[in-house]
């Protein structure tokens, strides 16, 4: 039962991180170059999950996912099943929830990029996508790795949102943090220690790896 929760948690974190990188990179780039007066509003929207209690996000998602609501209705018509209590629902929630942890480090790194390089490349005739792939991405490798790791780690630890919309279905929505909650509630402290200790060791290892990369600057 525990292995199903481990596998599900990793799968959720992996899929979420993948989606976050696909939408996070262009979004962070757009934000780093945009000069609109709406910038602070968009940045605030992206950063909201960092300060918002996860249960608030979970509550609104529960309402949005309901077939009484246009979004939930649309999903039901498209797929024949509800978005709440499904793996897809968890992915949607996790993407929103972990978005700032991916976008913010990327945006900061993009802003610090030497834009002279880009101008030079432009003068030599490199197109925008070409410049982005051959100049921006290689020069921000470390930030890309950091962003992916933060998104991954943050999704692993997600609790409040899953509790609100997950429904605790083994193999589908029962992630590790929910299994830990169950174990503590039912006084199964041995299981609780296994899960909590495992998550602690994972978080510590990840941070040590990240900081040692940061120190060596090997990915600059």
């Amino acid at each position, binding site marked *: 039962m525990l292995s199903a929760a481990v596998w599900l948690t990793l799968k959720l974190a992996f899929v979420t991180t993948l989606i976050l990188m696909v939408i996070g990179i262009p979004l962070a780039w757009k934000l780093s170059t945009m000069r609109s007066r709406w910038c602070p509003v968009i940045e605030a929207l992206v950063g909201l999950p960092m300060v918002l209690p996860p249960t608030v996000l979970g509550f609104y998602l529960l309402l949005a*996912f309901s077939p009484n609501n246009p979004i*939930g209705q649309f999903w039901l018509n498209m797929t024949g099943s*509800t978005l709440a*209590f499904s793996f897809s629902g968890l992915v949607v929630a996790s993407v929103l929830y972990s978005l700032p942890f991916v976008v913010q480090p990327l945006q900061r790194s993009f802003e610090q990029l030497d834009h002279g390089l880009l101008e030079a490349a432009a003068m030599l005739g490199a197109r925008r996508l070409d410049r982005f792939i051959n100049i921006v991405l290689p020069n921000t490798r470390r930030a890309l790795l950091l962003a992916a790791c933060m998104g991954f780690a943050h999704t692993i630890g997600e609790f409040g949102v899953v509790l609100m919309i997950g429904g*605790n279905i083994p193999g589908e929505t029962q992630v590790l943090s*929910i299994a830990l909650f169950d174990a503590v*509630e*039912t006084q199964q402290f041995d299981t609780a220690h296994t899960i909590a200790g495992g998550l602690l060791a994972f978080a510590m290892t990840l941070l040590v790896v990240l900081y040692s990369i940061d120190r060596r600057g090997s990915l600059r």
Partner: protein
Amino acid sequence: MISPLASASTIRVAVAANFKPVLDVLAEQFEKKHDARVLVSSASSGILYNQISHGAPFDLFLSADDERPAMLEKNGLIVPDSRKTYAYGRLVLWSHRDQPVTLKTLEAYKGRLAIANPALAPYGAAAQQTLEKMNLWQGYQGRLVQGASIQQAWQFVASGNVDLGLVAKAQVLDQPKNRILDIPESYHAPIRQELVLLKQSKEPKARAFMDYLLNDTSQAYIASQGYRPAK
């Protein structure tokens, strides 16, 4: 508003979240008749049990089950003979759709069913026993949406995310009667809600409040709120 002196007679009560609305009313009535304050803390029975085991300063504990009070008694944390049943929970089948529900509904239904987690909540255990009794438990595997508590199971149905749920009668008192079916009590073990007086309590009025909850008037009120009275 509250003078420092009044805090001398403060009864601290830990109550399972499902019973909090009922307890709030009874506590207010008690406060009017006696010179005491009742401070109510609510959470799930499991959380409250863990808190009490780790020394949380409560006088009374109203659990949603009889297991945790029995565990506290076994661990020597309660006043001897203070473990009493204060109410029996009632399980109902509740439909979000505007259609009458019967036991046949549960047999023919193909969608997801909201229940409380059987491992955590007595209403969840009763739901599991009911489905097992009806030989439906296997068929519902993978279609059970489990809330961490019976409140959450209710919330899954109330928000429209699930059409059907096995919830507590106390939660659906204001709902159209034809959408609610009382599950026969013979289908599951009694949902016995027990209270205990904690040994660490130094508040003499805690026992008076305990007796107050068990008297006929309070029990009649409890019965009107979707529970079966203790006596």
